[in-house]
């Protein structure tokens, strides 16, 4: 599926960023519409760099970004973007002596919600959204990793942002929490632009109408999850024995070997590809190991 770049809510043109000799982003062009866009890629592909630039925290070496028509290079417009932004960094630090409610209150103030009553309402709303309403008085240092991740998601939701940038939001969540997270994102009011990065192809397949695959700092694919899965059509087989010629092969729950690659194993049966298969073949084609 191709988006109309001229009307996209978030536009990225020719974005590049280097860290010393490492090229984190290499001429990235993107157009993000309202709804959820999943960013898929291995470690070091440039996902975090791209998201931090979208969140106006990082700075590119070259290229342009437009968020709802605002240019982050202009100080006044950058503040306008931040007023519409909810951001969950990959490694969010916490003031561990704060209680859950106090931390959210602190972030709400940073988001210019200064009225005491409105802050309390917002904090209560996001706590309920992530299922932490009974933990308002708990100190952050006493929370489990999964709860901290939910707290991170909660702070991103403060102020009902129009643009949600979530860097690996499902990391550390148990299966039930991941399902609740999907439910939460799907039910957000106002149809915000949501861009999330993940290693979990099933998260992408479940909730993202748009997928972007980033490999070695370059966009390798944009489209729907079904289109990503379709790139592996005719290249995924199930067989009783492992075939060494496959790019990747693993034994599935049905005790049969699933092969992804161009060479069908002897006696193999062609099976329907998944988003994960499409992603694996793309990364293999890009030479990523």
């Amino acid at each position, binding site marked *: 599926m191709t988006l109309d770049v001229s009307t996209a809510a978030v536009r990225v043109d020719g974005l590049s960023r280097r860290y010393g000799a490492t090229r984190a982003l290499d001429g990235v062009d993107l157009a993000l519409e309202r709804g959820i866009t999943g960013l898929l890629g291995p470690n070091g592909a440039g996902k975090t760099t791209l998201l*931090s*630039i979208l*969140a*106006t*925290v*990082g*700075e590119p070496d070259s290229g342009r970004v437009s968020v709802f028509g605002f240019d*982050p*290079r202009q*100080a006044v417009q*950058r*503040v306008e973007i*931040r*007023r519409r*932004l909810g*951001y969950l*960094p990959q490694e*969010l*630090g*916490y*003031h*561990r*002596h*704060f*209680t*859950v*409610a*106090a*931390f959210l*209150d*602190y*972030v709400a*103030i*940073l*988001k*210019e919600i*200064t009225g*005491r009553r409105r*802050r*309390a*309402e917002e*904090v*209560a*709303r996001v*706590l*309920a959204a992530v299922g932490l*309403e009974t933990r*308002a*008085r708990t100190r952050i240092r006493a929370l489990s990793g999964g709860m901290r991740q939910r707290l991170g998601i909660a*702070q991103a939701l403060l102020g009902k942002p129009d643009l949600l940038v979530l860097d690996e939001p499902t990391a550390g969540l148990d299966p039930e929490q991941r399902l609740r997270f999907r439910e939460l994102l799907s039910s957000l009011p106002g149809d915000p632009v949501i861009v999330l990065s993940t290693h979990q192809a099933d998260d992408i397949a479940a909730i993202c109408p748009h997928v972007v695959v980033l490999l070695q700092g370059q966009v390798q694919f944009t489209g729907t999850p079904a289109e990503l899965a379709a790139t592996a059509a005719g290249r995924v087989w199930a067989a009783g024995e492992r075939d060494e010629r496959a790019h990747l092969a693993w034994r599935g729950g049905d005790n049969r070997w699933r092969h992804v690659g161009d060479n069908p194993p002897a006696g193999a049966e062609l099976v329907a590809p998944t988003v994960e298969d499409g992603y694996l073949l793309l990364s293999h084609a890009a030479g990523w190991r």
Partner: protein
Amino acid sequence: MTHAGEDLLAGYAAGTVEVAEVWSVEPHLMACARCRSVLSAHVDAGRLARNRSVLMVRAALGDAGRVRGLLCRCGVPDHLLRLLGATPSLRRSWLLSVLGVLAVVTAEAAAVRYGWVRASGPARSPEYRDAEVLAPFLLVAPLLVLAGVAAAFLPTFDPAFRLAVAAPFSGFTLLLVRSVCALAAALVPVVAATFLLPGPRWLPLALLLPSLALCALALAAATVLDPRAAAVTAGVLWAVPVLLLETAHGPLPIVQAHAQFACLAVLCACAVVLLARRDRFEWGWTR
């Protein structure tokens, strides 16, 4: 007993009835189980749950410490206190560390001055010795103030720094609020300690300007250098002259008239730089 009408109870549940009617219906509800039962059918359960959550959050946010409660009663805005709560150099552990260091250098100076312990090195005149015992204090005290301010503005000390950057709240305002409060919090024990020292009576006042100049220098330098390098540079620019002067003339010249004028000049120059380059504290994408 006359019961309240259903329309009145529905209006009461929705919060749309007049105040006078509220006054009449509430005492009746306290005494009438039937009307309470009718009322419950008109109450929005979701709204009740939301109100309960908000009340719980307000109660949780109201659990402030004694100092915070006192400052609130003195009229300091609630949101300002929350921002300051995330400043490491305003936390009890930091302030206790400052007091500990000050206690050591003050006690050492007092012990030497009053002959409780013998000073090392060659014998000096009593006047020179009186000034000499101040050297550790004069070296350390402004550095403690600088450390407090540096901890208030260095990104390293703010675990949620990236959130602060991505938020619309002005980075420069946040920096100023935190730095000024950290400066004040560190200056109080420093100035108090000088009253316990065997130095000249003007010493408490004489420490103010160098401390302010040092902090302003660190902040101004942070608009040009990496913030950590700026803080270290300011610290070195204090420590080196103190040590050199102490060796040649004793420690007091660093806080006497000429040095005070120099500090005032540095303070003014840094204030100008800071204002002119305040955009550098709007971290993140800045081009």
